[in-house]
């Protein structure tokens, strides 16, 4: 099953770069989204803590 899944014959030079681009695209979207959410959430927490007397 794995052998068949990974077999792209003479088109491997086109198939695997296409999968590579998709993986990179998803990786960028996930990392950028989570980093952005983490950064702003931490900033809000810090500002709210500094507001407390």
């Amino acid at each position, binding site marked *: 099953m794995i052998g068949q899944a990974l077999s*792209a014959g003479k*088109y491997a030079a*086109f*198939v695997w770069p296409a999968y590579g*681009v998709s993986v990179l695209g998803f990786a960028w979207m996930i990392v950028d*989204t989570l980093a952005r959410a983490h950064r*702003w959430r931490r900033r809000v927490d810090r500002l709210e803590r500094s507001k407390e007397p």
Partner: protein
Amino acid sequence: MFSALANPLRFMAFSRWAAPLLGVLATGLIGSGLWLGLNAPPDYQQGETVKIMFIHVPAAWTSMLAYACLGGASFVSLVFRHALADAAAKAVAPLGAAFTAIALITGSLWGRPMWGAWWVWGDARLVSVLVLLLLFVGYMALRASIDDEARGARAAEILALVGLINLPIVKFSVEWWNTLHQGESIMRAGGSTLAPVYLTPLLLAGAGYAAAFGALWLERIRAEVWRRRATSLALRAALA
């Protein structure tokens, strides 16, 4: 449901569990779709390049879904002046650009062995999807280029609404013009012409891409809500 979620507090409570749930769903759907797709037999015409279809077509569908969301959020923001709709519009543009770029690059990698060309300027489908990418990039650039955030948002949202005209052009380009790109084979009158051995993994991957888009969009809206909250808190602290 949408009016309930228009309240930022309710939206944050909802998206806190909905985003990870959609992420898990996306992982399962994309994983099973790609596993079935990669193990499907080579197509009698396309050979093993048919494996590119399971990542190219869902990316193209999701890019159009993302633009419809950008248009919808921009409309609500412009007409009702709703801050969460504006945050949603701002959050969706980078995702839409990424999915469109993936669709264009994977399509090009399929086109080279099948058509003998990486790109064909005379093909209406290819050019209209490139215009879609330029609309996403233009939206982000216009928004970022105006110092006044509210004015930048208005200008970008008008551009997004004008760009909605491109969606039917992308969808029907293969019917309205003679294109190298193959015609509609899935969502067509009379049913799909695709064999079930390809159609099932394609639909699974398509649903997975949509779920991944939903998860990422919700999380980016949350980040934008926090950014605005941080800006407002910092301003209040500076004035105190």
